[in-house]
């Protein structure tokens, strides 16, 4: 497989009290290969969305990407790009879709005009060709009666249809990578299933890589190739999806699994993680999960690196080296 994208030691900072800065994303590394789906999973405030925005230098001011961070897209050093060069990457090589398609669509232009605009911005084609291409894209994302829908305004479409339009606009530039930030969170479950099917088929047909940002372990299972679990600005566990689900090892990941209500299997009282996610300005010292961890032990006072659990499976917890230490919950 060809490595498309590599992020290494990615750090994003914001100004805090006085002259201090805090780090909502604090040393994140991952890579993406052609046709691969990597899921970045975590609860609100873990830094997953900022990580995805950093890929395109879209961190809102006064935030900034710290020096020492690396983002490589093929041979390109993305963080060295400015202005026009950066615009050629955004959309064209890395496309993005967000949770709420309504805020990303222009309410006063038709769906067709917005897709055509995207095509003309990236390719030298006639407007007739662009319209033809827009029609094909709507078909590809499963919009019924696409010729009619091209003439619709965003408010005339349902939430699921709007998200399909957003995907079509992102696809218009034929990106190598699609970053999907909570693409189905605002949608009903039956519509969510439709959108996930669309993303899956595009990945297989086009060989497009997908970085899926989500809080929902359920939509990751059976779809993503690999999973990275984030907590407090860091990746705390990463593995091929079947391994992570068969053997969740970091106490935080285990806590997440114990918190998720299931539709099948025996009905048990949920066993949630105590407390709540700390604020980015106050990441705990040592292991960041230590204050909430039922298995913390003396070594947790030192911050652990990502340590191997088994082949292709790593976690940021000393239990990887001393499995008999922590108390089992």
């Amino acid at each position, binding site marked *: 497989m060809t490595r498309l994208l590599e992020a290494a030691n990615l750090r994003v900072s914001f100004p805090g009290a006085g002259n201090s800065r805090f780090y909502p994303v604090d040393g994140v590394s991952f890579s993406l290969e052609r046709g691969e789906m990597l899921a970045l999973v975590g*609860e*609100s405030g873990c830094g997953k969305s900022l990580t995805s925005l950093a890929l395109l230098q879209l961190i809102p001011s006064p935030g900034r990407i710290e020096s020492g961070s690396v983002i490589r897209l093929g041979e390109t050093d993305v963080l060295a790009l400015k202005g026009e060069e950066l615009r050629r990457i955004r959309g064209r090589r890395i496309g993005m879709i967000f949770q709420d398609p309504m805020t990303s669509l222009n309410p006063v232009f038709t769906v067709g005009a917005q897709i055509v605009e995207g095509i003309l911005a990236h390719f030298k084609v006639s407007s007739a060709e662009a319209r033809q291409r827009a029609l094909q894209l709507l078909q590809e994302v499963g919009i*019924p009666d696409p010729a009619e829908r091209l003439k619709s305004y965003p408010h005339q479409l*349902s*939430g*699921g*249809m709007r998200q399909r339009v957003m995907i079509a606009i992102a696809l218009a530039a034929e990106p190598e990578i699609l970053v999907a930030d909570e693409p189905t969170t605002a949608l*009903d*479950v*039956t*519509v*969510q*299933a*439709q959108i996930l*099917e669309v993303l899956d088929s595009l990945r297989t047909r086009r060989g497009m890589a997908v970085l899926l940002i989500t*809080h*929902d*372990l*359920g*939509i*990751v*299972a*059976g779809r993503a190739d690999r999973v990275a679990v984030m907590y407090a600005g860091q990746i705390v566990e990463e593995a091929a*999806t*079947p391994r992570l*689900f*068969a053997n969740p090892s970091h106490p935080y990941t285990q*806590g*997440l*699994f*114990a*918190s*998720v*209500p*299931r*539709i*099948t*299997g025996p*009905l048990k*009282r*949920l*066993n*949630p*993680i105590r407390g*709540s*996610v700390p604020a980015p300005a106050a990441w705990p010292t040592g292991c960041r999960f230590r204050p909430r961890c039922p298995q913390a032990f003396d070594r947790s006072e030192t911050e652990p690196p990502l340590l191997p659990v088994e082949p292709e499976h790593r976690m940021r917890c000393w239990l990887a080296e001393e499995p008999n230490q922590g108390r089992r919950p």
Partner: protein
Amino acid sequence: MTSLLSVRDLVKYYTAGGLFGRATPPVRAVDGVSFDVGRGETLALVGESGCGKSSVGRTILRLQEPTSGEALYEGKDVFSLDRTELRQLRRRMQIIFQDPYSSLNPRMTVGAAIAEGIEIHRLAARPEIPGRVAALLEEVGLDPTYARRYPHEFSGGQRQRIGIARALAVQPAFIVCDEPVSALDVSVQAQVLNLLSDLQRQRGLSYLFIAHDLAVVRQIAHRIAVMYLGRIVEEGPTDQLLANPRHPYTVALLSAVPEPDPAARRARIVLSGDLPSPSSPPPGCHFHTRCFHPMKSDRCRTEIPVLRPVETTVAACHYAESTPRPAEVSVAQM
């Protein structure tokens, strides 16, 4: 189980004035809904956005007026109460919302917000109120000193606990929980679900639990009613309805729940098309335009199916006896 609340043929239409005075068809948010909630019982009202589940919750509390139908609370029709009686009823029936922040006054301390109901209904002498508030905060798992703080100082999960404490302050018997955990992160969601279960057991509360997530509902509900376009399409005891759904919509909804287990990868039924508009629902069975039932016929397009007992649930489908289970639905039928 004696029922605490009996709702019969509840109808709620929203009429829009229409731009430039043109008459538009009413939105039939709730279109003839009947159900019972027993003492100490949780009935979950489940469905996707626009199915009318929240309108049901708000109408039976008279937060909005019904178009027709009746709601008997302890035998008294909620819809025919005068102002004084309605105020009395509000002490017995409470509601908690998805976003507790929007229902908390930002300039009122948490303590004052919780004490408000106690004062209005004169449930305690003034000197006793701070003690009551402290006890309520402890009961929902919060530090009693939080009473002096303001809502913006708290996380989403803590605010939901404050909303629950405020509802409990007037010692209700019945609480409408309108998507109470939908906006919360999974770990906090689990904490709040456990809290609601514990409170129900300790206080003998009845819940009408409105939600879109069947996995969440399974944790808390004794019975489930599934709504689609303003009507209940299936109802039954939780384990029966989840194990053997008889309405095709319930089957589809169940198969769409993302389960965090790749091994348990179940057949996914991906419904075609969008939810039709509730102002012009399809004739006959509302679900026929998206239905995958192999026996779907002209009858579905013309005759409204009534809720009737089928095996272990009641379902509104002409062919409920032969509704396929998720595993039996082949791709070709979708």
